[in-house]
C-alpha cells in the first residue's frame, strides 16, 4: 500500500477504461449467446407452459426458486462489504467495495427474474402489485411472498442508489480525464460533482445514512426470503433458526463470489497493488467465520429434530443424510463448512489458485444447500403417500445457464466502462483513511 499515490491510483484505475481488446468483445459475445439461450428457453416455457420444467407435485419449487435464493444470497455480501464494514471502519474493504456493490446490484437483478420465470403465466404478475383486482380484492400482505415482493424491490432500489451515490466522485474523476462522447456521458452521470467542501459535508453524512439503512435492510431481506419457507408447515422448513441461518449462508456465498470475481479482475487489470493479498486474506478469514456459522446451523437443525422428538422432523433429517438427495447434503456440508476451514492455513489463503478454487467450491456448495432445503422439504413431507422426487429438465438448465451468463455479462460490461475500484476510497485509505469518510 505504501507504493501507491493518488496519481498512481487514478492511472491504474483509469487505465482499465481504455478501449478493450477483441478478446473482451469475444467473451462478451459468448456470454450474450448464453443469455439468448436462457431467453429462448424462457420464451419456450411461456408458449408451452410451466410444465416444461421438472417441478410438479409434491416438489412444486425447483431450480427457479433455488436460483432465486442463491442469487439473493450472492447479493448480500456486497452490502456487507460496502455498508456493514463501512460502519465498522474496516479500511481493507475499500479496494473491493465497488465491485462487491456492483455484484449486489446485478445479483438482485438476476434474482428478481426468477419469481417471474417461476410464475409461468408471467403476464399475471400484477396480482403481486398493490392494486385491487376487478372484485376489489387486494394482495394479501399476511403472506411472506408479499413480504418478499416488498423486500426484494426495496433491496434492488436501495442497493442501486447506494451504488450510484458511492460512485459520484469517481464519475466526476472520469469526466475530468476524458474527452468527446465519453466526457459528455460522464458529465451527465456525475451530476455536476465538483468535490466542493459543501458537497462533501452533505455527501459524507448521506453516505453514512445509506450504510446505516442498508445494514438492517440486508438482514431483513434474507430473513424475509427465509420466511418464504419457514412460515410453511413443511418439515425441514418450519424452523425458527431459518432467518439467521439464511443470512449467514447468504454472506458466506457472497463472499465466495467476491473472491471468484476479484481474483480474475485483479489479474486482468493489474490491481495487485490495490487489491492486495491482505485484502483477499481478510475475505478468506471472513469466509471461515461464516462457514462455521453455517456449519453450526446445519448441526442445530439436526439437534432440533432430535430434541423435538417429532417423528416427521426426525424422518426428514434422517432422509436428508441417507435418502435420495443425500449427495446434495454431503456437498453442502463438505463444501460450505469443511473445505473453507482450509483457509485457516496461511499457505492456502495466501495462494491465489487455492483462494479461487475454494471460492468456486463454496459457490457450488451453497447452490446445493438451497437444493437440499427447498427440494428436500417438499419431496419428503408430512404424508408418506405424497413423497416424491424431482429432476430439473433441460429447459430449467437452459434458463439457469442463461442467468449465470447474464450476471457475468453485466459484470464484464461494468468492469470496462465504469471504475471497478473506488478511486476516492482508495485515496482515503492512503490518508489512513477509513475514519476520513463520514
Amino acid at each position, binding site marked *: 500500500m505504501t507504493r501507491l*499515490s*493518488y*496519481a498512481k491510483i*487514478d*492511472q491504474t484505475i*483509469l487505465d*482499465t*477504461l*481504455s*478501449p478493450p481488446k477483441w478478446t473482451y468483445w469475444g467473451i462478451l459475445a459468448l456470454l450474450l449467446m448464453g443469455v439468448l439461450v436462457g431467453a429462448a428457453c424462457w420464451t419456450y416455457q411461456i408458449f408451452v407452459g410451466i410444465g416444461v420444467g421438472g417441478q410438479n407435485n409434491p416438489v412444486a419449487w425447483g431450480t427457479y426458486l433455488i436460483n432465486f435464493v442463491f442469487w439473493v444470497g450472492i447479493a448480500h455480501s456486497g452490502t456487507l462489504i460496502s455498508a456493514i464494514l463501512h460502519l465498522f471502519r474496516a479500511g481493507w474493504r475499500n479496494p473491493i467495495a465497488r465491485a462487491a456493490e456492483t455484484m449486489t446490484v446485478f445479483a438482485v437483478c438476476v434474482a428478481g427474474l426468477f419469481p417471474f420465470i417461476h410464475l409461468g403465466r408471467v403476464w399475471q404478475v400484477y396480482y403481486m402489485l*398493490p392494486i*385491487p383486482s376487478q372484485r*376489489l*380484492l*387486494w394482495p*394479501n*400482505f*399476511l*403472506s411472506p411472498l*408479499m*413480504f418478499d415482493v*416488498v*423486500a426484494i424491490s*426495496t433491496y434492488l432500489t*436501495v442497493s442501486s442508489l447506494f451504488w450510484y*451515490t458511492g460512485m459520484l*466522485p469517481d464519475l*466526476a474523476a472520469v*469526466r*475530468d*480525464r*476524458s474527452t468527446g462522447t465519453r466526457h459528455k456521458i460522464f458529465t*451527465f452521470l456525475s*451530476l*455536476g*460533482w*465538483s*468535490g*466542493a*467542501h*459543501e*458537497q*462533501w*459535508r*452533505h455527501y*459524507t*453524512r*448521506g453516505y453514512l*445514512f*445509506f450504510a446505516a*439503512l442498508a445494514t*438492517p435492510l440486508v438482514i*431483513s431481506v434474507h430473513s424475509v426470503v427465509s420466511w418464504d419457507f419457514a412460515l410453511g408447515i413443511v418439515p425441514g422448513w418450519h424452523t425458527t433458526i431459518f432467518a439467521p441461518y439464511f443470512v449467514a449462508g447468504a454472506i458466506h456465498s457472497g463472499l465466495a463470489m467476491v473472491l471468484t470475481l476479484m481474483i480474475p479482475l485483479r489479474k486482468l487489470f493489474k490491481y495487485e497493488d490495490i487489491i492486495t493479498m491482505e485484502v483477499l486474506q481478510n475475505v478468506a478469514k471472513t469466509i471461515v467465520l461464516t462457514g462455521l456459522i453455517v456449519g453450526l446451523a446445519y448441526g442445530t437443525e439436526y439437534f432440533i429434530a432430535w430434541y423435538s422428538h417429532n417423528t416427521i422432523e426426525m424422518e426428514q433429517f434422517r432422509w436428508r443424510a441417507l435418502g435420495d438427495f443425500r449427495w446434495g447434503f454431503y456437498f453442502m456440508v463438505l463444501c460450505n463448512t469443511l473445505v473453507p476451514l482450509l483457509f485457516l492455513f496461511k499457505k492456502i489463503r495466501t495462494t491465489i489458485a487455492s483462494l479461487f478454487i475454494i471460492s468456486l467450491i463454496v459457490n457450488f456448495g451453497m447452490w446445493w444447500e438451497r437444493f437440499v432445503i427447498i427440494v428436500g422439504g417438499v419431496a419428503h413431507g408430512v404424508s408418506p403417500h405424497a413423497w416424491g422426487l424431482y429432476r430439473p429438465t433441460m429447459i430449467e438448465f437452459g434458463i439457469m445457464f442463461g442467468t449465470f451468463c447474464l450476471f457475468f455479462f453485466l459484470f464484464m460490461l461494468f468492469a470496462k466502462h465504469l471504475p471497478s475500484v473506488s478511486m*476516492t476510497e482508495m*485515496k482515503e485509505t492512503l*490518508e489512513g*483513511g477509513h475514519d*476520513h*469518510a*463520514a
Partner: protein
Amino acid sequence: MPHERHIMGLFKNEDQVVSTLEALKTSPYEFVRVNTPIPSHKIMQSLNLKKSKVGWFTLCGGIIGFISGFGLAAFTATRWDLIVGGKPIMAIIPFVVVGFEATILFAVFGNVIGLLTQMRMPNFGSLQYYDPRCSGEHFGVLATCEAHQENSLEDFFRQRGAVVKIWPTSKGGDPDEGFEDSRVQGSVGS
C-alpha cells in the same frame, strides 16, 4: 465593492490546505470554497462546518415510509375483512414487516432528495471556477480578491506551496478558463 479576481491555490497535501485555510481567515482575501478529491476531516474541522441537514430528510422519509407501508397493509386487509390463516384482520406483526421495508425505502428516497437539494445537484452546466485536477491528486482552495490584490494573493498561495490558477475578471471572463495550466495528470487510457 465586487471582488474582481478568482484565484485557486492547488495543493497536494491536506495539511498545507489546513494551514492555508487558517491563514486565509486573518487575511484580506475572501475564502470561497475548497475542492478536494477525498472527504477530509481535517479540512472540514478547519472550516468549522455545521452538521448537514440531510438526516432530517432521511428521518422524514422513514416516518412517511412506515406510515405508508403499514397503512397500505392495514388498508388492503380491511377492504374485505377476510380471515386468512386464522390471523386477525389487523395482524400487527406481518404488517410491521411491510412497514419496516417501506421505512427503509422511503428513508433512502428522503436521503437522496436531501443530498440532491443540499448539494444543489444535478447541475449539468459547466462548473465555475473549478480545476479538473481537484478530482485527482490536488486540493484546490478558491479565494477572491480585489484586482489590485491579485499578485499578493498569488504570492500568498505560492508561499504555502501551491500551484496557482487565476481566472480572468468575473465580468466578461469565462470562469471555466483559467490562466494556469489546467491539464490533468492521468487520463482515460487510449
